[in-house]
């Protein structure tokens, strides 16, 4: 409270310096994917942890690719993202120290309810994408190296189609976050791949709905990666570890399972299932 009061009454030039020193309290910087923020998960999780430990968790929500890059620049104390191969590569390259499973949900294919490509009820996600490509139906891609984008590209490569050659035609890369991409897909009656949490919490669905879901290939694993202090000497290691321990422990996992929107569970805790 005192800290706030000081900022309120400082004169402009002094603010410049006061704002810097006001950062001195106990906090960690979490470089995160967007779905966990946009869905409201952090607002549900963090107050309990902050109250218990007095450590504030400051969330910078960007795409998974950007989050890993920022953490590689030592601009974060912890990563929470959803692209396992990229996370493991980050650890192998020496930026990350340890990667642990946190929770999962799944990706879904969303599109106009009329479903012009007829992807509903198909055999698997690959078949659905094949139908979209064959009918040249508009498909909006993140195109931003995020976890969702990586998943989408792996699904295309699984059926031997390189959609990027149709970029600008029926395949449209927004280069933006999930929310902006969903807004674009709704705006142009296009199909789009999204994580379920962002979709459930998304407020501008208009005539769009989930058309394909449930294929094991649409599994979406979220992981937490600690930063290697040898690579980043400034990392707040002890505070970050307390958060990881809490998140992966019974309290954090129960809090994740307890987060619901419109009666639906958005994330399923699975800490310890497949750590690397």
């Amino acid at each position: 409270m005192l800290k706030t009061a000081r900022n309120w009454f400082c004169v402009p030039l002094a603010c410049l310096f006061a704002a810097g020193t006001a950062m001195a309290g106990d906090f960690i910087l979490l470089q995160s994917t967007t779905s966990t923020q946009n869905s409201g998960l952090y607002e549900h999780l963090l107050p309990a942890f902050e109250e218990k430990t007095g450590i504030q968790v400051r969330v910078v929500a960007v795409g998974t690719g950007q989050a890993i890059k920022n953490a590689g620049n030592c601009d974060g104390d912890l990563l929470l993202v959803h692209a396992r191969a990229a996370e493991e590569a980050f650890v192998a390259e020496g930026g990350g120290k340890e990667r642990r499973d946190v929770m999962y949900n799944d990706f879904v294919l969303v599109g106009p309810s009329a479903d012009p490509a007829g992807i509903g009820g198909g055999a698997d996600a690959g078949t659905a994408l094949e139908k979209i490509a064959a009918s040249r139906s508009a498909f909006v891609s993140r195109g931003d190296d995020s976890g969702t984008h990586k998943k989408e590209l792996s699904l295309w490569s699984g059926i031997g189609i390189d959609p990027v050659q149709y970029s600008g035609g029926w395949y449209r890369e927004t280069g933006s976050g999930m929310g902006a991409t969903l807004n674009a897909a709704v705006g142009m009656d296009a199909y789009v791949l999204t994580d379920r949490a962002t979709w459930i919490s998304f407020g501008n669905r208009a005539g769009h709905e989930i058309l394909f879901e449930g294929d094991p290939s649409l599994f979406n694993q979220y992981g937490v990666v600690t930063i290697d202090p040898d690579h980043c000497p400034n990392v707040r290691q002890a505070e970050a570890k307390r958060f990881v321990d809490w998140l992966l422990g019974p309290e954090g996992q129960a809090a994740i399972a307890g987060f619901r929107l419109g009666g639906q569970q958005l994330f399923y805790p699975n800490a310890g299932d497949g750590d690397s």
Partner: protein
Amino acid sequence: MQDFAASFFEAFRLVAGLDSGLIEIVWLSLKVSITAVFIATVIGLPLGAFLAVTRFPGRSIVIVTVTALMGLPPVVVGLVVYLLLSNAGALGPLQLLYTPTAMIIAQTILVVPIIAALARQTLEDLNGEYRDQLMLFGLGSLARLRTLLWEGRYSLMTALLAGFGRAVAEVGAVIIVGGNINHVTRVMTTAIALETSKGNLALALGLGLILLIIAFAVNALVFLLRAAAERSAYA
């Protein structure tokens, strides 16, 4: 188009409820942008004045450069400031990334060219008008500059307001260097970007409406101060 109607409702709901989260965000927006304009004035006004009254080789190039920098893309400024303030960057040890200070730095860079270029034009025009008189009084160059700044104060105020408008409305720079962290670096524009990405379009528009009202209030305040000052000057 029900979003437009709903946005008025959302704006009203937020304002009427004196939403504490909203007050915090509005306050940080004002604090960051007003501080940035203040610092940019301290840098930009002398720069503009210097360019207005002096003649030196390469002056036109400097003027064109400063004027062109009014079009600096905020996202580029954000990226440059991020690279400097990042722990991997030259100024990393200052630990300023993801703080309001980083946002002030980025907005200051955006506003300095606007104030310098507009001040230069204003003062140069005034100098053309008054030069002979000022020469006649035999004033030194500093005293002459002081006179010009005083005579041009109202036009210069418009330059500061243009700078404030730029600062308070931009999102590209502050979202990169501030990180849009709740309760720490979230301002009006980054909150609008976040709500848009959540698909809460009415709420995002409502926030935009409030931002407009704030900009209006700041401009109205300056207008009234100016009117009062003019009245007392002629009284």
